[in-house]
């Protein structure tokens, strides 16, 4: 991994912990498909020992909104085989407030707070509202394409 992704913390670290925003999942399997989003998800299949995934309940619910029942069943099993779904209420309220003060909307602030709370290295998103806040954070905010470039 290149040195500009949290160099001090990640040196020699076995796993890279990622949180993928809803848009990454959706763009991975729903047209207009973004190949970079699909490739980020494929990382967990190709190099599962290198990458670890975390997901909050709210992202699962958001993905569910765009799937019919049998599709969502596949998504749920796919996620369940990779990680455990974290309940939203576990994330400290104060952490969300911290990101709201920084200018994120409440819901985006929650995702940022969740990413910090799980100690993730990277939040992968195509959401420009997040991407413009990528300064002085305990994690990196990257698009799928940038994420792939950095970790490959």
């Amino acid at each position: 991994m290149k040195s500009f992704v949290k160099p001090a913390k990640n040196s020699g670290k076995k796993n890279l912990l990622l949180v993928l925003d809803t848009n990454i999942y959706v763009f991975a399997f729903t047209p207009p498909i973004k190949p970079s989003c699909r490739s980020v998800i494929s990382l967990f299949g190709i190099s599962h020992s290198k990458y670890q995934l975390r997901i909050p309940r709210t992202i699962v619910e958001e993905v569910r909104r765009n799937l019919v029942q049998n599709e969502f069943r596949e998504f749920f099993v796919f996620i369940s085989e990779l990680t455990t779904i974290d309940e939203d209420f576990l994330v400290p309220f104060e952490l969300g407030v911290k990101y709201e003060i920084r200018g994120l909307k409440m819901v985006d602030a929650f995702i940022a707070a969740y990413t910090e709370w799980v100690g993730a290295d990277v939040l992968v998103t195509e959401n420009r509202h997040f991407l413009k806040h990528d300064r002085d954070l305990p994690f990196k905010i990257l698009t799928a394409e940038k994420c792939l470039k950095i970790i490959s």
Partner: protein
Amino acid sequence: MKIKKPNAKRAMQHFEKLCQLVSQRKSPFEGMTDEEVIEKLRKTREELWEKKLASRT
């Protein structure tokens, strides 16, 4: 927090099945640009959040 040991192979089989199922129907985002899709997803996020907050008050 307890983290489940992943089974990547099985996970990817389900992911591929999901991709296959979704490709067989009309996309809810047909005709939209990437940016419009992202905005739609943000709206869904806000709606779900508002519902969640309303159920707690």
